[in-house]
Each structure stands twice: as C-alpha cells, then as structure tokens.
C-alpha cells in the first residue's frame, strides 16, 4: 500500500486539536518540518511529549499550540535554557502550560509500557529524588517477588507519533541508524504514526537489511518524504547538526518579539519545507559530513 502523502496532508489528516503528540528524536532526527506545519495549521491545545522539548517544542510553545508538556529535560543542549519554555512556565506567556515531568529513564519506561501495552513499567530510579513528590504518576511499590521496593510509571500512549528517519519504503517500513533514541518505542506506543524520511527507497532495499528496520509499515499511517526535514537537528550520515543555529536560537528566543519575527519569516512566511530548504540552501550545503562506511555484511541466500 502506498502511504506517501505531503506534510500538509499528513498533519491535516492525522493531527487534531487537543491530541497528545510525540515528535521524538534524541538530538538526532528531530522533525522540525512537522512542527512547522503544525504551527502553520494553527493546531490548538496539544499535549506535547518529548524527552527533550529542545528548540522544536520551544518554537511550538511560542506559537501557542501547546497546552501541556510531558518531558524530562527542557534545556538547549550544550547552550543553556529554552527561553520560550521558561516564559510560559515563569510568566504564563503566551499562555501557561501544564507540566508532566519525569527523568529520561522514567519517560523511556513510559514509552516502553505504552508500546508493549503494559499497565506500568518498573525502574530503579527516583530513590532520594523529589520528583515523585511533585508527580503522582511516579509511584513506589513493593516487588511481588521479595522485599525490594521499586518505582513504577504508567504507560504513555500518544494519539500520534511523528518520527524522522533516514529512509522508508512507500508502505512505511522504516530504517534508522545512529542514535535511535525512543523512535521505536514511541511508534509502537502511539495510535497513529507518521514517518518522515530523507529518502524513499524500494521495498527490496529494506528487505536486503532487515536488522536495520525499526518501524514496520504495519503500524504506519503516512509516509512523508522531506529532505532536510530535521534541520537544525541532524541525520546521521546525511547532514550534521547545525550547532551554530542552536547557539543563535538563544539570542533569537531571548525576547518574544524577536522569536515571533523569526516564526514570521521561517514558518508562517513559507508554505512548505521545500521553501525553507531553498531559503536555507547555502547553510545546509555546509552541513554535509565526510564518509564513514560500514563493511557490508552477508545475510546469506537460503533457497
């Protein structure tokens, strides 16, 4: 089945006002193209889930599409704070947002429970931390098999997950290499899945390397082909992280006015990711890495 559609179409059809949405990707494979389309379509009251809200949710918070944040680290990695996030939490601007806060392991565990349809997931974390005191979803229980006490967290099952990847076929069989973060768990945990890829490949390319398939087409609703769709995040082997932009964001986002001007120019002022790529062309070309190929492996032909 051919599930390839445009980003506009995918967001219109699969992301609704009030939805719980996970655009994941840990530093790697963060789908800014999808976030910008959600902002352009002026979706409302979204519960946004991500381990690291990062610049992507900072932009969505500033644009007013976020009602609630489910997260574990809201900083600009290696740079400092997320300014729009802070304005929303400290001053309620442009609107106040609810926080549902975990640690990384805790949120990973929530996706694991969600993906495997379990009622909770146990983990050895949170001892001595104040996090369980401010989040009643982090609970301590007695092990049914001994004296040990263990913390548990509930499943997270987003309405829709949007996951960026190197490549997929038209049915949505998706391959990822490099940091795979929680892409797989977030996909299996969600009711609907949109995969966004740098490259559309034939089914035979996927079948030639089945160990690299993270998300099967079985659970995918839409495939969007969007080269450079993760910029200023990166795609292993294809383009580097635009670290300079993450540093610039600190300045752009200091004041709501400069941030809004940026959104006007780079999100509202454009119709598609293709226009963003065209406008950003010179900068994107500098992000191409050198080559570092793996040795081919032999799966064997058994006839």
């Amino acid at each position: 089945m051919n599930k390839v559609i445009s980003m506009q179409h995918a967001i219109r059809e699969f992301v609704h006002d009030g939805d719980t949405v996970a655009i994941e990707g840990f530093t790697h494979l963060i789908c800014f193209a999808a976030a910008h389309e959600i902002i352009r379509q002026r979706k409302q009251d979204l519960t946004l889930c991500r381990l690291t809200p990062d610049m992507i949710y900072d932009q969505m918070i500033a644009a007013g599409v976020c009602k609630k944040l489910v997260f574990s680290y809201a900083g600009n990695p290696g740079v400092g704070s997320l300014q729009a996030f802070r304005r929303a939490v400290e001053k309620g601007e442009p609107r106040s947002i609810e926080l549902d806060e975990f640690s990384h392991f805790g949120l990973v565990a929530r996706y694991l429970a969600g993906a495997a349809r379990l009622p909770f997931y146990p983990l050895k974390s949170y001892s001595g931390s104040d996090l369980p005191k401010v989040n009643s979803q982090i609970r301590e229980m007695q092990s049914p098999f001994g004296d040990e006490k263990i913390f548990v967290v509930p499943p997270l099952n987003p309405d829709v997950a949007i996951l960026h990847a190197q490549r997929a076929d038209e049915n949505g069989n998706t391959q990822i290499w490099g940091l795979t973060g929680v892409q797989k768990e977030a996909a299996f945990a969600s009711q609907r899945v949109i995969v966004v890829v740098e490259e559309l490949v034939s089914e035979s390319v996927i079948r030639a390397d089945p160990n690299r398939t993270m998300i099967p087409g079985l659970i995918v609703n839409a495939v969007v082909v969007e080269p450079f769709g993760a910029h200023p995040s990166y795609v292993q082997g294809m383009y580097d992280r635009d670290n300079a932009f993450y540093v610039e964001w600190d300045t752009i986002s200091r004041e709501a006015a400069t941030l809004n001007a940026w959104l006007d120019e780079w999100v509202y002022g454009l119709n598609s990711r293709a226009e963003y790529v065209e406008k950003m062309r010179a900068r994107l070309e500098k992000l191409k890495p050198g080559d570092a190929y793996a040795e081919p492996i032999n799966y064997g032909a058994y006839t």
Partner: protein
Amino acid sequence: MNYSQNELMIAAAARELQGARVAFVGVGLPNIVCNLAQRSHSPNLELVYEAGVFGARPARLPLSIGDPTIVTGAVSAMGMADLFQLYLQRGLIDVGFLGAAQIDKFGNINTTVIGDYQKPKVRLPGSGGAAEIAVLCEKILVITRLNKRAFVPRVDFITSPGHLEGGGARKKLNVRGRGPEAVITDLCILRFAEDTREMIVTSLHPNVTREKVQENIGWEVRFAEALKITPEPTERELELIRDELDPHGLYSR
C-alpha cells in the same frame, strides 16, 4: 604557563577519572572533562552517553551530548531503553560525571527549579538522566563553578540525591551508587567527610585563599587539616583543551 581558572578546573576534574573504566558523561562541562581524560591519561576510558552510545571515541568535542561524532567509531550505538536498562541499571558504570545548577553541603543536586516547584522563580531544565545516574553509577563526580547562588545550605529541590541529610541517610536508600565523591570547582576541590558526609575543602587551586572560597559558599565551610594545593594543568592538557576540545573557549575561558 598562563591558564584560566576554568582550564585548571577542567584539567583537575579530568584527573579525577584516572583509573576509572566506564564513565557516564553528563551535559556541559562534564563532556569536555571526560573527553580530556580520554585524550590524555585515560585512553582506555569508555565513555557512555545517555543518547545511546557505549564506548564513544569522539573525533571533535560534541557540543550536545547527542552529537553525531559520538556515534561514528563507537563500540555500540543503541536505543535509550537499552542504554538505561542494560548498561546503567545493570550496574556497568563506575563513574557518573554531573554538572549542577545548585548543590548543597551534602552534595544534593538541583537542576529543576529555583524557588517553589509550582511557582518557580527560575525554571531550570530538569533531570534528564541525572536522577538515575545519581543512584545507579557506583560513584558521582560533580563539576561546577563556585559561587553563592550555586552552593547553598539546602537545595530548593532535590533532582539528584547526594548524601541527603548527611550521616548514614544515603545508605538507607539501598541503591547501588555510593553518591558524590568530589566536587571540582574553579577555585577549589571539595570532598565529603567520612562521618557527617558534609562537603569539606580538600584542595585549594594555586593563588586562591580560604577567604575567597568562603566568600563563594553559602554556609560556613570546613577545610581539611591536610589541605592541598591543586596541581597546575600541564602544557599537554592545555594544548588539548585549546587546540582540540574547545577552540572557541566556550567552556574554558
């Protein structure tokens, strides 16, 4: 040899990793420290990044802890579920290296909020992996600049537990990790008293006075009887910091 207080702090922190086999690398300063250790005295140090890498050999200093350079040439790249469960929770990590926005006299770390959680004066990034690193790595090292805003008698929020209320409090948690062992700052190194588990100054950086240290700590701090002077950074360490790891001086100037 001229050097900055930050360069001295980074070199001194890296030396704390001598003999360690597997280190969990935190965001910010710990990142440059662990990479300096690997490039100088500890070439066999295995770097673990919460992003999902074991045995990283970064060719450049990763600005973020999910940089592509930590993947290329690593022993293993994996999902975060495997990293947290099979490496950290399984108990394979010797040292966790953390930064701290706020730290108290018992080494409890706050990276969540300044002020009240519901109505924060300053909203900080939160835990990331620190809450679990703090209890699941065998020991913890902390690096942060010394100032009164950061070094407070009690943190506003315990994101990552240190020695809690001191004494035997942490033992009662019944976790694998023994907690913080040293705090490396730009003015001095602090360790924790055996009995009270209170932070004490054990080494002053060259040309730093006791008064200067006290001015920058929010409680009356004790000094070790055998107070040492921190060795200066070597030429090789400075070269690595300036030429390879931090050419723009983001961390070290």
